[in-house]
C-alpha cells in the first residue's frame, strides 16, 4: 500500500509522547521523538496494550500495560522476540504524513 495519508498537524502530538489514529481501517500510533517521528501499530503485540500511551525515550517506547519495550525504528521488542509493525511517517508542508507498511514487509517483520 503506497498511499501517504495526512493524519494530523505536528503540534497535535506532544514532545516525546504518542497519539493514535485510524488509517485505512488500522489503528496506528505516531510518536514525536527528539530527532523526528516514528509510527507503529497502536496495539502491543502482547495483549493489545495502547503503545501510544507508553513512555517514550530517544528511540523506544514502553507499553503501559506490561512494560514490553519496542525499538521504534525496527519495531523489534527489546529483550524479547515480539515485533510490532512500523510505518513510514514524515512531517511535510505543515502536516504529519503516514504510509502503512506493506503487508509483505509486515510478514518479514513478524
Amino acid at each position, binding site marked *: 500500500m503506497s498511499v501517504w495519508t495526512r493524519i*494530523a498537524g505536528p503540534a497535535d502530538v*506532544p514532545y516525546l509522547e504518542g497519539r493514535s489514529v485510524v488509517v485505512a481501517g488500522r489503528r496506528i500510533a505516531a510518536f514525536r521523538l527528539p530527532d523526528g517521528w516514528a509510527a507503529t501499530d497502536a496495539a502491543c503485540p502482547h495483549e493489545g496494550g495502547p503503545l501510544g500511551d507508553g513512555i517514550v*525515550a530517544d528511540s523506544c517506547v514502553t507499553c*503501559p500495560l506490561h512494560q514490553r519495550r519496542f525499538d521504534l525504528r525496527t519495531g523489534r521488542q527489546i529483550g524479547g522476540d515480539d515485533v510490532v509493525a512500523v510505518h513510514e511517517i514524515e512531517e511535510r508542508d505543515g502536516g504529519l504524513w503516514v504510509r502503512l507498511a506493506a503487508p509483505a514487509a509486515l510478514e518479514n517483520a513478524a
Partner: protein
Amino acid sequence: MFSTHGILVIGGGIAGQAVCEAVRTRDTDVPVTLVCGEDHLPYDRVRLGDLLADDGTVDALRLRPDGWYEDAGVTVLTGSRVASLDPDTGTATLESGTVLHYDRVVLCTGSDALVPPLEGSDLDGVEVFRDPADCAAILGAARSARHAAVIGGGLLGLEAAHALAKLGTATTLIHLVDRLMERQLDAPAAKLLTPAIAGLGVDVRLEHATKAVLAGDDGKAAGLAFADGTSLDCDLVVVAVGIRPHVGLARETGLTVERGIVVDDRLVTSHPHVLAVGECAQHRGVVHGIVAPIHDQAQVAADTLLGRAAAYEGSIPTAKLKVMGVDLVTAGAAEGEREVVVADAAAGTYRKLVTSPEGVVLGAVLLGDARGAELLMDAVRVGRVTEDPLALLAEASQATAAELPDTAQVCNCNGVCKGAIVEAIRDGGLGSTQEVVNVTRAGAGCGSCKPVVTELLQIERAGAAEEPAYLCPCRKLTREAVGDLVRERDIVSVSELAGACGAGRDCGACKPGLSYLIEERQAAKFRQERHAKYINDRVHANIQNDGTFSVIPRIRGGVVTADELRRFADVADKYELPMIKITGGQRIDLLGVRKEQLPAVWEDLGMPSGYAYAKAVRTVKTCVGTQFCRFGLGDAITVGIDLEGAMEGLHTPHKVKAAVTGCPRNCAEAYVKDIGLVAIENGWEVYVGGAAGASVRKGDLLTTVETAEEAKRVALAYLQHYREHGEHLERTYHYMERVGLEAVQAVVLDPEQQTGLLERYAIAKAACDPDPWRERYAPVHPNQFSELDSDPEGLDLVALAAAGMEVAR
C-alpha cells in the same frame, strides 16, 4: 544411559529441590519431574519458625520463585503424592491414579515429626512443629492459650519454646534428661544454656518424663502428667522430640529399610534404579536431621544419576541455634580424649575444642561467643591438625572472613563454601549482599551467615561500599548521584537532567523516578513534563487492561455525603459506565471510563482526584472510633480525615497508604499500613512500614504519644523522611527492612531533625497539587485527553469562566 523418561524426584523439600538443582547444573536436557506432596512449591523448612514469629507467609520461604522451574525445565506437580512405585518397569502411580514414567527415581520423602505413643497425644491442642499447617495451628492456639508446654529440649524444641514465649504465651519447656541439647552439648555448656533460655522467658523443666496428656472437660488438652506424679496445667502442647523418616513408600517398594532408607556411598538404595537423599535416607547407619548433609548428598546423587563416579562419605553433624540473643554453634564431637576450654561463667560464654591426642580437631562447642565459628567448623570438617588447640581457639576468635580457607563452609543451610562465594563475586562482578545471596544461595537459609557474606563482599570490593541500586541503570546513576547533579546545576526538569547526564534517554523507564526526585528536591521550582510520567499520571487515572481508565475521587477517611453518592450514581448512568465498585481503600471506583470522557466525568463528579493512579499518598482509612463505637478510645474519623488532608497531593517514592483506628481492635487495619495510628488508653501509637499486599508485614511501632496532634506530627515527619530517603518504587515496608527501625527513630523522633523534616514537608505540601483533575479546565496540551481522531467530551471553558468557576493554572 537415559531413554526419554529421565529422572523422577519424589518429595519437594530441601532435598528434592537440591537434587533437581544439582542435576541441572550438570545436565540441562535430561527430563526432570519433581512431585511435591505438599500444596506449596519447595520452601525452606529451616525458616519455618518465621511463620510463628512474624506473621510471615510460606511464599516468603520459597526456595526458588515460580519462574525458576519453567526456566530450569523442571516439571513440578504440587499437592500430589506418589502412592506406589515399580522401579523394574520404571513407573510411579500418583494417588490421583496418574502414572509417571522414569529411568531413575530419587526418594526425597523426608520425615514426619515423631510423636511418642503418649496417652492423650491425639487430643485437640497437641501440635507438632514440622510444616506450615502446624505453624498455623500453633499460632491459632497460642492466641487463646493460657499456658503452652513444649516437649523436647533439642534444637527444635528450643526454637518452638522461644517462638511461643515471643508471642507472649506463658511457656514451659519439658525435657527428659538432665541437660538441654544433650546430643550436641557437653554438661558445662548445657548448664550455661539453661539460664540463657530461661532469660528468654521460658520456664525450663529438666528430668521430666511426660507420662500422658490430660484432657479437660471440653475434651481438649488441659495439662501434662509426669512420671514423678507431678503435673502441669497447659492448654497447648507442642511435641518436638524428633523425626520419623517417611519410609512407607520405600518399604512397600521392597527396598531395604532400617531407621531410614538404606543407601550406599553413591546414595543408591537396594534397587539399582532408586536413590534416596535427605532426612529419609540412612547412610552408614546415620539418618541426618539437618540441611548441610543434604547438599553433600545431592551432589553425589546427581553424579550417580548421570553415570559419573562419586562417593558420599558422610557429614560432620553441625548445629546452629536460631534463637535471637543466644549464640550457639556446635560441630562434631562435644567430648573427647583431649579438650581445651575457654569459659567465662559470669559472661555466659563457653568455647571448647575437642581433639584427638595427636591434635586432630574432632569437635567444637561455641556458646555465648560464636566468633570464628566458620573457621572451627572447617577445622572439624577437614580434621585439621593442631599442635596447640588453645592457640587455634584464640586464633578463631580473632579470625575474619579473610582468614577462612576456601573450603570453609560459610552457609550451612545451603552448603556454600567461601571459595564458591568469592568466585561468584568475582565472575559475576556482584556488588551487593542481596545479589550474592540470590546467586550463591548463601544466606538464603536461616540467614545467620549473612554477615560473613557481607564481609567477604567487602574484602572482594577492597572495602568499597556495597553497590547501590541504580535510579538510572542504563547510565549507572544512583539516586545520590542524580540528586547531587540536580543540586549543583540547579536542574528543574527531566529534560534538563537528560541533557546534563543522559539519564532517561536510553530506555526511559527511569523517567518517572527522575521526575519524582527533582520534584522532591526542587519543590516549587520543579517543572514537570508529561513525557516523564506514566500514562496514569499524564491523565490522572489508572489505565486498565482494555485501555480504558478508572476514576477514584478523594474520599477522606472513607466518609461520603449523600449528595456525593447521588453524583456517583448520576455519572455512572450518564456515561453508561460498566461498573461502580467499593474499593479496598474505603473509596468508590468508577471503572471503564474512556480517556476522552475523563474531564467531563470529573466535572460532573465535582470531587478532587484520589490520586489512586499515582506513586503518591493514597488513602487514610478510618474506623468509626469514639464517634460511634462502644470500644472507641480515639476519634479515628476526625483524626483520619485531618491526616489525609495534610498528606494528600504529595508524591512519594512508592504509594503510601495510611489508616487511623479507634482502638487496638484495628478495624481500619492500621497495623498493616505504611503509616498507621492506633488509639490506645490515653494515647496514640504510630506504626510505620506495615503492609498487607504482595507481602504482609506488621508495621514497626515508631513511637507512642499522648495526643492525636503529636501523632499527626510524627506521621508527617516520617512521611517526609521516607520521601527524602526511599528509593524509587521502594514501599515503606521494604524501606524499614533496609534501614531498620532504630535508624529511622533516631531521625524522626529527634526534636531538632523532626522540626527540619516538618519544615521541608510544609514546603513540599505548599508546592503540590491537591487536585490535578482541575487540568480539565486547563489541559497541559490540547490533546492531553484525546487521540488524533477523537475529541474530549466538550467542556465549555468559556461558559465555565462566565459562570465564575475557578479555572486552574
